[in-house]
């Protein structure tokens, strides 16, 4: 009897063990089961002959004659993102990581460099008014592409591919994330085999909105031809194409596991294939920012790690190990406090935070001015941000040409107190009041170590001038989520002050500055979708914005933008705090990564190289 039972469980254990073993041992050989990643299943050892076109002696010496004996070309570049790439079609991206993953394969006509200047990629040159590429009346732009461009499958890159990319994203059912970049286009004409003319729906001051930067990467018509409309996400052919686009950049896809790893190998048809240093590129995703920093700086397992947004106290000792360089990868935007001009008092019920309900005390410019003067930006920066930010007085800081030199925001508690005294806000105990209105503010932001620490500093700063702050922290998914049914979103702004980061997405600030005009005021009438969530409404500002919309001269546009920034800041419509940077880290022997404001952190990856 007991024998029988013994046998029964022993067999069961054995079976269980076999199942586990079978499943386990299947792993290493298992190719990614998804068909998409298949174009080259690594079978024909691709790394062996990386330079099909070039004379072998030339490449390493020519580009960088000054560097001491260049390292042997080849090898693998390993990049670590704590958010993993999930699609390689940039037009269907759900995060910066997807644009960056696609950057290794796909290219736009031009990209921004570290100085916010345009660099031609597929284009032969940057069209300007001077060279006749940009129409003086702002109605069109004419691009010339480099001759003889090829896709990584060997077919020719043509103007039709560019026109196709526009049609692909202009179709609403495709649901392109990048749609806004293509919306202003009325038509694209093919002038000849290397020239195209884009006509805008209305005269535009920003001729570089389309086909430039991460939003402008060009897809191959041959591959995506059947993918316009809903098919882009639903048809099997297009799903496969999204995960394995054919491109023009220095590498092509070898293997992609969405949400995990992308491995790229040389694209032999790349125009400068002989100058490309690395044979292979890998972008690994997942984990957290802290261990990503450690993987570069302490264990040197990877060459480059992206966006190490971690508190200064944790980041600095890691960076101090000496194996890596921290580089400001890009601008994250300006961390700011938005002032609510509408009254968020819960007693108002449905009328809460509606623009027709003026705020009881934040509409007083003296209070806004005093708050701005009392905040210790330097302490917030020194104690919390460190290398990942610097104090700023401006809400518009990039490009450098529009960063206003006119504003000041040094801390001055005495002056702040004086302003409040003068305006009739008198201290009654620790809190000031006037006509029975007490200066007690609610201050909300998303849950994030940095932000809660900033909140604490600001709370103590404002206590010094007799303003009591009640802080509130909201889950980031809710705060930024924009769900019209949720009371805690930043669009509804059921508080007096709120803090978050934002910044312009292109070198032209118009889109960004639109966020303070009266028409954008967020209210229940527009389902709380207006981008002006502080409900600031100033006819003077609106007039300047109308002027900006019509102005085509770049210098005068910059002046206008500065004027608008100064107006917002001096009027206390918004209180800028910290200009945040995306801190990246790279190994000391990797050369190439640069700062970049409006483009990807890896915009120039084709030129990255290892130095001895």
């Amino acid at each position, binding site marked *: 009897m007991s024998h029988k039972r013994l046998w029964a469980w022993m067999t069961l254990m054995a079976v269980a063990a076999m199942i586990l073993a079978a499943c386990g041992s299947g792993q290493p050989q298992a190719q990614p089961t998804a068909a998409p990643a298949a174009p080259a299943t690594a079978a024909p050892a691709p790394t062996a002959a990386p330079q099909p076109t070039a004379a072998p002696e030339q490449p390493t010496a020519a580009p960088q004659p000054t560097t001491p004996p260049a390292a042997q070309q080849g090898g693998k570049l390993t990049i670590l993102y704590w958010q993993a790439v999930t699609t390689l079609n940039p037009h269907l991206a*759900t995060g910066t990581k997807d644009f960056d993953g696609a950057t290794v394969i796909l290219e736009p006509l031009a990209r921004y460099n570290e100085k916010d200047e345009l660099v031609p990629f597929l284009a032969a040159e940057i069209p300007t008014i001077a060279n006749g590429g940009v129409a003086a009346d702002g109605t069109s732009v004419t691009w010339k592409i480099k001759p003889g461009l090829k896709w990584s499958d060997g077919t020719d890159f043509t103007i039709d591919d560019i026109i196709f990319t526009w049609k692909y994203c202009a179709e609403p059912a495709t649901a392109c994330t990048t749609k806004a970049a293509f919306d202003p286009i009325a038509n694209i004409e093919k002038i000849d085999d290397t020239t195209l003319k884009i006509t805008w729906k209305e005269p535009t001051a920003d001729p570089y909105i389309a086909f430039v930067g991460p939003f402008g990467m060009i897809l191959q018509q041959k591959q995506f031809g059947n993918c316009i409309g809903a098919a882009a*996400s639903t048809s099997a052919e297009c799903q496969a194409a999204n995960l394995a686009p054919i491109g023009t950049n220095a590498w092509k896809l070898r293997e992609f596991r969405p949400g995990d790893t992308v491995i790229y190998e040389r694209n032999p048809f790349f125009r400068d294939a002989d100058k490309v240093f690395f044979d292979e590129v890998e972008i690994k995703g997942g984990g957290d920012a802290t261990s990503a920093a450690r993987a570069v700086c302490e*264990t040197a*397992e990877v060459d480059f790690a992206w966006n190490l947004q971690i508190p200064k106290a944790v980041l600095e000792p890691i960076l101090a190990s000496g194996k890596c360089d921290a580089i400001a990868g890009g601008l994250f935007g300006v961390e700011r406090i938005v002032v609510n001009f509408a009254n968020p008092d819960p007693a108002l019920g449905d009328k809460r935070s509606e623009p027709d309900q003026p705020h009881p005390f934040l509409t007083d410019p003296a209070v806004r001015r005093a708050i701005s003067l009392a905040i210790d930006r330097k302490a917030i920066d020194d104690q919390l941000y460190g290398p990942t930010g610097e104090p700023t007085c401006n809400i518009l800081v990039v490009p450098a040409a529009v960063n206003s030199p006119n504003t000041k925001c040094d801390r001055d508690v005495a002056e702040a107190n004086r302003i409040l005294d003068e305006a009739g806000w008198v201290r009654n105990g620790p809190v000031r009041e006037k006509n029975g209105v007490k200066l007690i503010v609610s201050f909300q932001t998303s849950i994030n170590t940095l932000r809660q620490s900033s909140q604490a500093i600001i709370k103590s700063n404002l206590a010094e001038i007799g303003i009591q702050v009640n802080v509130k922290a909201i889950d980031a*998914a809710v705060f930024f*989520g924009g769900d019209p049914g949720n009371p805690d979103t930043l669009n509804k702004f059921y508080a007096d002050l709120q803090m978050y980061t934002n910044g312009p997405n292109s070198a032209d600030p118009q*889109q960004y500055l639109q966020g303070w005009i009266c028409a954008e005021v967020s209210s229940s009438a527009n389902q709380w979708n207006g981008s002006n969530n502080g409900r600031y409404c100033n006819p003077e500002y609106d007039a300047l914005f109308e002027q900006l919309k019509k102005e085509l001269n770049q210098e005068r546009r910059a002046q206008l933008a500065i004027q608008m920034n100064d107006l917002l800041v001096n009027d206390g419509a918004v209180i800028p705090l910290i200009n945040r940077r995306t801190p990246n880290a790279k190994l000391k022997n990797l050369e190439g990564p640069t700062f970049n404001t409006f483009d990807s952190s890896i915009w120039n990856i084709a030129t990255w190289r290892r130095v001895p």
Partner: protein
Amino acid sequence: MLQYIIRRILIAIPTLLIISFVIFAVLALAPGDPLAQFALNPAIPESTRELIRVQFGLDQPWPVRYVRWLTSLLRGDWGFSFGTRGPVLDLIWQRLPQTLIVVGTAYLIAVLLAIPIGIISAVKQYSIFDNVATFFAFVGFSVPSFFTGLVLMLVFAINLKWFPIVYNTTLQIVDWDTFTQQVRQMTLPVMVLVVQQTAALTRFMRSSMLDNLNLDYVRTARAKGLSDRMVVLRHVLVNSLIPVVTLIALGIPTIFAGAIITENLFRVNGLGALLITSINNSDTPVVMALTFIFAILTVVFNLIADILYGVLDPRVRYS
């Protein structure tokens, strides 16, 4: 017996339906937006985000979305992920091997360690071995995996540099070198999981043995003059393994559920990591598919555990 199994399977269907409904409702009512990352981006206006939501079917009320999800599931279509815009099942198949090899190995090691430790602890109750084992079991129980994980990482990966901290999921095992590489990168995550799982199983094994050691049949066996070894291994062990085997069977679905924290910490990117990133990104189809598959596995292994019980324990009979 067959009748019993059929009845159980029939009961499982409404159970699974209710589970799926509840999960869907929770996901739908929880805040979140797949495009939250772009919420403030001035270049991606609300109108664009609305178009994408329509494309994902998120403009419909959630009960409608649930019925749609269910009907397409009955056709065998698990939907496409909002993040990859590719089929959900492909994603799951890609992640399964990582999870099985790491979490599965850990489970196997945990079982192989826990049974002998439990036996010795029970037979030599209150001995030094028992005390030490109990101590470690409680440490394993009470210290969360994100802590053990970080400590192991700091000590063995960052300071001693014995193991890597970035798990390479694309590693192909072709020779001895790549095999050792695989073993090295698996060591830390497996260790974290073994510490936890062994703790629970050891305690269970020990108490199950202790329950049996004092019973009459053991005294009878001893009285017959059987050797101690024979009594423990042939009589006590077999009987005390019955509940343990059930427990082990019930634990198998958790292998497939992955280990959310450990996988994330070591970048194993298996099913656990997939689940947590999908929840964070409000990628409903992926979360639904994963949780529903776990639900099915749990129901199935519950049934298997019950049947096993009947096979192992002749006193239990199903009719």
